[in-house]
């Protein structure tokens, strides 16, 4: 199965290992990812705060490239990119005059036929197929994961999203499929502050501390996320916001691809997991999930 793939700027820079893991896990599951040709930045939320026209036009270029290359579906692992591409698509459908104005400047025209998918949707679809359950050779026993969606994937209002807006369950289904334990918690769709960690750190640290405190109060031993921005924030700033808000425990922050990769029996070295700030291998060694001798 061929699937168009839009990595986004973050997955080519600070979260390059997420890009690597996504490709690895998808090829293990038999999905062929095709990175779209010469993609450009989607503008993230900054474009929306800067100019209305740019907020629609910047993502539209990528939609056009994927559509003219003949793809019907595109997976967007980064939540920020996903929400801005989806928003642009809906705006263009509503507003034909804006569509023709943008198409005038584009070599690859937009027609609105593309279906955008989050990484969760693709993984859920792939794991629902027969025979995949048997391929989970390292069930993640002993992990109690706080599934953190962040605010961008449930970005809704007039834009339809695939999961429940207030209480999404997609990631829980997936993590349970891989054998880990999940839990109900209150901050699964809360905002980590994203860029506020840089331009307004006091506010952002308070938001992150709230997420961390709730995860700890419900006895989670790791956080799982799909958004590179959430992962970077909760991971890189964990020492600082925990110190500032009197939290003594630290939690590893995994990408969903890391758990999927481990469960599917990929070697831990091939997943490139050394780029985390908070140690992630400790928990894996402790629970012995990657231990070959324990598998049946």
């Amino acid at each position, binding site marked *: 199965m061929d699937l168009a793939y839009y990595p986004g*700027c973050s997955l080519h820079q*600070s979260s390059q290992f997420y890009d690597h893991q996504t490709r690895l896990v998808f090829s293990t599951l038999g999905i062929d990812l095709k990175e779209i040709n010469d993609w*450009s*930045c989607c503008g993230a939320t900054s474009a929306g705060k800067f100019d209305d026209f740019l907020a629609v036009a*910047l993502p539209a270029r990528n939609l056009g490239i994927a559509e003219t290359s003949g793809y019907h579906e595109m997976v967007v692992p980064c939540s920020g990119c996903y929400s801005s591409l989806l928003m642009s698509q809906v705006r263009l459908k509503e507003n034909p005059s804006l569509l023709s104005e943008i198409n005038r400047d584009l070599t690859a025209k937009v027609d609105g036929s593309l279906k955008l998918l989050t990484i969760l949707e693709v993984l859920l679809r792939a794991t629902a197929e027969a025979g995949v359950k048997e391929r989970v050779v390292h069930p993640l026993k002993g992990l109690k994961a706080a599934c953190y969606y962040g605010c961008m994937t449930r970005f*809704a209002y007039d834009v339809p999203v695939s999961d429940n807006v207030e209480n999404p369950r997609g990631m829980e289904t997936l993590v349970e499929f891989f054998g880990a334990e999940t839990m109900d918690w209150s901050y699964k*769709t809360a905002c980590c*502050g994203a*860029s506020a960690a840089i331009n307004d750190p006091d*506010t952002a640290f308070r938001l992150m501390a709230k997420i961390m405190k709730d995860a700890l109060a419900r006895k989670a031993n790791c956080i799982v996320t799909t958004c590179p921005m959430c992962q970077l924030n909760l991971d890189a700033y964990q020492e600082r916001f925990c110190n500032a808000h009197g939290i003594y425990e630290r939690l590893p922050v995994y990408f969903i691809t890391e758990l999927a990769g481990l469960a599917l029996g990929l070697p831990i070295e091939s997943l490139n997991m050394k780029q985390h700030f908070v140690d992630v291998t400790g928990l894996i060694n402790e629970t012995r999930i990657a231990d070959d001798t324990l598998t049946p």
Partner: protein
Amino acid sequence: MDVWTYDPADAKQFAIEVMERSNQNIFACYQCRRCASGCTVGEEIGFTPDRLIRMVITGNRKAALENALVWQCVSCYTCGTRCPNNIQGGRITETLKKMSREESITPRSPTIAYFHDSFVTGCTRWGRVNEIQFMGAYEIKSIAKNLVNLHFTDVWKEIREQSLLLKALFKQRRIHLKLQTAKGRNEVRAFYKKAMQKKTKSRNVFPQR
């Protein structure tokens, strides 16, 4: 203290302007405050989307444009997902951000404005965002601002904290120095140029007060 008087004609014009630009029907707001209970930053700044909408409807232009929420809103869109009348508060703060810039009002939190400016100019220049380049542009702007205002302790704090982050990112190999570009960046630049032309045009439609 600023004294504000209610002028129905003025109020209507402002409310309609916000409504058209944000594409949100703010007159549907009946102050149930579900957005307020969901607001991520409401607790931190003591101001919530419902009050901002009220300010816009009553035409308190100055207070609405100079509000802390306008700049500190993190665009998580929680208010919009909760609203029974489908008003997306995040879009309203985004619109007010743009309007306050167009009216040359100094942003309440200048660093946030610098951040988004650097991000957009960076990504429209190269086609893709270069984390080092746009963070550098942002830091220069924010440090220059602090130097001009003689806030030397803030400058020192900023440099220390950001260099610690940079060091940590380097250690984890999460910094990539290779310039990221898209070959078709001329298209992106053309969009940027067009957006800037539109901005100057809209300034003539709504003259400065």
